[in-house]
């Protein structure tokens, strides 16, 4: 079996650019200026992974996944995905967290974004979030949903 290159079967989408999030602040994928890149349509994929990279964590970070069925309006309604939450502890400086999103048979979405809430009391936390969406269905059928642009090959 000839396995494909990763970049021909996956899309990489920045959801929350790396930033210092102040205490008692929530940052979501849509609140940043590059709005069109902050959420991702995932219905065509089998699996997605939300990858949260942490640096210094001053207070615990609550991670949530939110979904939306229509982002065409001025104020789309984002809803927490039931059960899709986690807490990254303040002791977990310089850690990587990987959340798998099983897309088979889901009825929510098809747009998803991350929500990060930094708790209060001890300053800012530095963190960023990226979606990896794997195995676009059409790709298996010879389609061309492969869409990760490689900036360089070394």
């Amino acid at each position, binding site marked *: *079996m000839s*396995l494909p*290159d*990763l*970049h021909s*079967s*996956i899309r*990489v*989408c*920045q959801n929350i*650019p*790396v*930033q*210092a999030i102040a205490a008692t602040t929530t940052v979501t994928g849509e609140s*940043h*200026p*590059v709005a069109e*890149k902050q959420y991702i349509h995932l219905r065509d994929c*089998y*699996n997605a*992974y939300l*990858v949260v*990279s*942490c*640096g*210094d964590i001053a207070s615990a970070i609550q991670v949530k*996944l939110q979904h939306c069925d229509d982002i065409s309006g001025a104020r789309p309604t984002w809803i927490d*995905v039931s*059960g*899709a939450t*986690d807490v990254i502890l303040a002791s977990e*400086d*310089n*850690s*990587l*967290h*990987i*959340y*798998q*999103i*099983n897309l088979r048979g889901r009825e929510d979405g098809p747009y998803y974004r991350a929500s990060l809430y930094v708790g209060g009391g001890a300053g800012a936390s*530095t*963190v*960023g*979030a*990226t979606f*990896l969406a*794997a*195995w676009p269905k059409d790709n*298996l059928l010879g389609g061309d949903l492969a869409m*990760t*642009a*490689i*900036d*360089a*090959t*070394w």
Partner: protein
Amino acid sequence: MALPDLHSQAKFTQCVPAQSIAAGATVNGADVNAIGYRWMYFVVNLGAVAATGAGALKLQAGSVSGTYADVAGATLAIATDDDNTTKVIAVDLEANTGPHYRLVATGGSGGATLASADAICIWSKDTTAGGAYAVTAVDVTW
């Protein structure tokens, strides 16, 4: 053909934790042992970057962890207008000797650069033969 889940075929490594890289400063990423894998990808998440003076990413390789040399030609600039973007870099592990690698990030001279970098090593040769290189622990499945 049923393709496996990504995490059962890939190793994720945090190379550069999310941080603010001071103007002109260099951050050496963590060691990635890529032995047994076919491809490695660096996913670099950039926040606000230095407003002046380009930053840079480069690859270093070594036969053992802790001793590295620059890989010829393996550099990529971080432009001053790369704010809030992602850089994806593919490393052909059959074209490089390694097997230890690290990513080195240098901030632009005109201010801080917010960045993180993770490595994804995929297609362990042994896994395709039924080996046990599957190594990514998923925190939770939603």
